[in-house]
């Protein structure tokens, strides 16, 4: 029985991914984001069949096994774009630092305005950073790690849907700037969208994801208290 559930979860996830990917590549609409649509479909199926997260967990472990190696593979586009990195070191570093500071300030300011409790505010702080680091920052700052993980995933989806539209609206066409913006705000999920836009944008997404993680981890102990009530 467990094996059947496991296999069903694998087939369901792969099927949703392949279908929504084909749809996205056909229409290129940010709202047709494959992660967003597939997640909705899978949650709907789980709820309709009375399935729980615990049922889905073994399949999740198997499917995310290659995420580590895939992140390491980001070194490849990074290497192919090493000249961009060398020639534009200042814009890259300054852009990611400004973006990280701005998005943290914005989330805490908006969260305070909405009247959220301190522990939720702290959990919101590192939401733009890749999950393993965000969870650690949250724990060290007195937040709720599981909540932070949820905010990180939600931000990943929001940024990868909204980001490309906004960047186009303000005429940011430079693939370096687009990749950096997507990676800074939406970590791996933003990088995935940047990779679809092109190799340079994808490489910069990876750079931004790494830099934002380092910057946020380093500044959080000093920066978060300044913005908290």
């Amino acid at each position, binding site marked *: 029985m467990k094996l059947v559930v496991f296999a069903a979860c694998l087939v369901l996830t792969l099927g949703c*991914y392949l279908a929504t990917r084909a749809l996205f590549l056909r229409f290129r609409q940010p709202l047709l984001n494959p992660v967003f649509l597939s997640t909705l479909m899978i949650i709907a199926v789980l709820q309709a069949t009375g399935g729980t997260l615990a049922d889905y967990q073994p399949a999740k472990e198997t499917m995310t096994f290659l995420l580590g*190696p*895939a992140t390491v593979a980001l070194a490849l586009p990074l290497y192919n774009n090493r000249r961009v990195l060398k020639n534009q070191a200042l814009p*890259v570093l300054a852009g990611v630092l400004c973006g990280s500071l701005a998005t943290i300030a914005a989330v805490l300011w908006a969260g305070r305005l909405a009247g959220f409790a301190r522990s939720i505010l702290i959990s919101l702080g590192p939401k733009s950073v890749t999950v393993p680091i965000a969870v650690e920052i949250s724990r060290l700052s007195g937040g709720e790690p599981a909540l932070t993980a949820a905010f990180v995933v939600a931000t990943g989806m*929001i940024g990868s849907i909204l980001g490309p539209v906004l960047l186009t609206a303000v005429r940011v066409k430079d693939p*370096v700037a687009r990749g950096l913006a997507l990676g800074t705000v*939406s970590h791996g999920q933003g990088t995935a969208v940047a990779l679809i836009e092109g190799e340079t944008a994808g490489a910069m997404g990876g750079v931004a994801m790494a830099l934002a993680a380092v910057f946020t981890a*380093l500044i959080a102990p000093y920066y978060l208290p300044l913005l908290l009530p």
Partner: protein
Amino acid sequence: MLKTLFAIVWQSALLWLVFRLGTFLVQALHVALPGNVAGMLLMFLLLLTGIVKPAHIEVAGGFLLKHFAFFFIPISVGLMAFGPLVRQSGAALLTILVVAAAVGVLVTGLAVQALNGRSPR
């Protein structure tokens, strides 16, 4: 076909090895970085020094990067656990996250483009 499959398997093993090495290093040195990001930086270094050639990883690497988005689907399904919080204050949280994402994307994108404007390309 079989040759490509073979290349994907052993190149993935190489990528996995560097990933584990990155994870080990951040734990041993107590660096505030996730292991996968450390592994990426490590692999970048290996490529720059020529110890690893792009040809050693590009079949598996290209495949994994092409489907990078896939890995975030099973992770996102975990959002299901936060049903009660979403029902209670989902709209407010969504608004906050949208505002913060917009600010971050615009600041980063415009800053990089403005700083790049000076250097001819």
